[in-house]
């Protein structure tokens, strides 16, 4: 990569190595994170089901996006098949529970491990590839796994999909959004903590070294094949956990949920959030998931105003009745395009971010924070 991913802002004084690898950069940052988690813990009592379900989905996709970020952001490998691993985790958890009767809350990490194994198998050919060839190989794995899901009746229920049981935690059914929220929150905290710690370990630095220059890394004694496969495994593990959580939240798994489009969305999440940034993964997931809903409501608002303005203009020339019917007709046409506008917005956002903000939301956030910290002498 030609640019430095995260230039250190001025005013950042770290003098020892242990300072450099601490989990939180400042004490304040640590306190904010703890406070945030505490706020989330009690938030489920104040929020209604709609907000809770949004937060649950953001958490689930955030875990999977975090996994992809390990692969793409840390190691510099590209994967266009992440949603297939997400799906594998979903099916694996449902299958484990349906066939063996292992309690669901244990099936979720087990499904994660199964997905790790599958991810590493697909990682073996991928370990030798890079750039475009890798992208195409992972694209192929996406289609192969998708085909497997729609055909393996014993595992995934084939084209019909399979039911996933409600999570039962020591006699309590987690079948409401409120209770499921805690399960997802638990996994979000565990996953993000794990990846933050991975990044400050030797293995994490090895991955980053491979990303920055794989030949130099190899010469420094980093086993390229081993680390590339490991990073596929780690990334698949989180995809699997996310998938399993998704399956038991919807209580149903279908092959249609895990298409190439979802893989692209995962990539979009980490690019928009910030490549290689742990918290960026969650930000990106929130952005991509909330964008269509934002578009939906803004189109609705736009249509309302558009209609009023059009009626005013038209009624200068025409009878009120005709003006109303014409404007209603136009409004309906735009309204019908809502589904397409939502899809287009995803594509447009990817393009716009890559052109104007290639380092993602987290970069913008760092800039804002720096200028606030250095006020009034920001550079």
């Amino acid at each position, binding site marked *: 990569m030609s640019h430095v991913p995260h230039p250190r802002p001025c005013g950042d004084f770290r003098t020892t190595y242990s300072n450099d690898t601490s989990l939180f950069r400042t004490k304040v940052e640590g306190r904010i994170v703890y406070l945030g988690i505490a706020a989330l813990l009690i938030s489920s009592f104040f929020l209604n089901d709609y907000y809770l379900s949004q937060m649950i989905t953001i958490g689930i996709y955030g875990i999977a996006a975090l996994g992809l970020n390990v692969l793409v952001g840390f190691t510099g490998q590209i994967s266009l098949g992440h949603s297939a691993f997400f799906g594998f985790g979903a099916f694996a958890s449902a299958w484990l529970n349906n066939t063996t009767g292992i309690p669901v809350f244990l099936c979720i990490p087990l499904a994660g491990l199964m997905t790790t194994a599958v991810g590493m198998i697909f990682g073996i050919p991928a370990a030798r590839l890079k750039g475009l060839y890798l992208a195409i190989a992972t*694209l192929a794995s996406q289609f192969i796994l998708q085909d497997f899901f729609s055909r393996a009746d014993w595992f995934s229920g084939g084209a019909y999909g399979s039911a996933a049981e409600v999570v039962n935690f020591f006699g309590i059914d987690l079948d409401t959004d409120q209770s499921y929220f805690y399960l997802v929150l638990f996994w979000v905290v565990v996953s993000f903590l794990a990846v933050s710690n991975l990044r400050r370990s030797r293995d994490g630095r090895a991955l980053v070294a491979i990303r920055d220059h794989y030949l130099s890394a190899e010469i420094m004694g980093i086993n390229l094949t081993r680390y590339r496969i490991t990073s596929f495994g780690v990334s698949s593990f989180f995809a699997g956990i996310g998938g399993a959580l998704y399956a038991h939240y919807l209580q149903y798994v279908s092959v249609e949920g895990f298409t190439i489009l979802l893989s692209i969305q995962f990539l979009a999440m980490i690019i928009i959030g910030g490549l290689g940034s742990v918290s960026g993964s969650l930000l990106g997931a929130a952005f991509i998931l909330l964008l269509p809903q934002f578009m939906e409501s803004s189109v609705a608002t736009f249509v309302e105003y558009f209609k009023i303005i059009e009626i005013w203009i038209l009624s200068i020339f025409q009878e009120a009745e005709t003006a109303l019917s014409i404007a209603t007709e136009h409004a309906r046409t735009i309204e019908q395009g809502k589904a397409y506008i939502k899809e287009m917005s995803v*594509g447009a956002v990817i393009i716009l971010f890559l052109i104007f903000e290639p380092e993602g939301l987290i970069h913008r956030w760092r800039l804002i924070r720096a200028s606030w910290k250095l006020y009034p002498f920001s550079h």
Partner: protein
Amino acid sequence: MNWDLLFQLLINGIIVGMLYGVVAMCFVLIYKSTQVVNFAQGEFLVLGAWVCWFFVLKWQLPFVLAFIFAMAFMTIFGILVQMIVLRPLIGEPIISVIMVTIGLSIFMQALMNWVFGNSAESFPKVFGDETVMIGGLQVEMAYLMSLVLSLLVMGLFYYFFKFSRYGLAMRATAFNQQVAQSLGISVKQVFAMAWAISALVSCIAGVVLGLVNTVSNSLAIIGIKVFPAVIVGGLDSIIGAVIGGVIIGVLENMAEFFDGQFLHIGNLYTVAPFYVLIIILMIRPYGLFGTKDIERI
């Protein structure tokens, strides 16, 4: 063994594969000269087909005129895409470039769904009901026309790159951008030209497919089938892309043959190319005909 069927499927595979080859050629052209992987190739093709359809049906233009207009439109479109979307990303890492074309493909797919609808529309008859018998297989005239056109396009490509000044400039840019620039070649112009040519040729392929299969957004799947083709043929060889396309076309039809006759698995037709792709990449990480990069620190 049902030799008749095998033979007919083989011919069908070659004919369909030639079209894959043409699309793969467009893909390689862009990759070779601008180092951009165009994931929106399929959408380019569909857009070309829709625009031509629009001119024929809504403006009531004669087919040939509509075809020419559509090609002109796509040429301009290709240049605009390069200028607006891809120029800012020159020098960015490959993942950004891949993602930007993926974003473009999502955007175009949704926009075309909105503007042209999501059902399949057919062209009015251009060649009548004519089909030609080749080796016991009925083949549509449009496919034959596409064969002729593709051969023509390939010939033009060859001439263009070998003998014309611009072709030489493009080859030089593909070889080394900095050196080319220092020799006074406008790299910007070369890039725009590559996209224009690619969009134009995609338009031809799209219209042919539209004539045979009706125009619909699901034609964009060809853009995905291009990947196995270019991996087989090598990313930097235009001739290789055409051969790769034909191989994939034949492979698909052979998969259908063994599936339908013996295995009865179902959709081997659609996934077989991807298995082959993975196997090839396991043996040769740079594709069958691709050149291995030699890197220095």
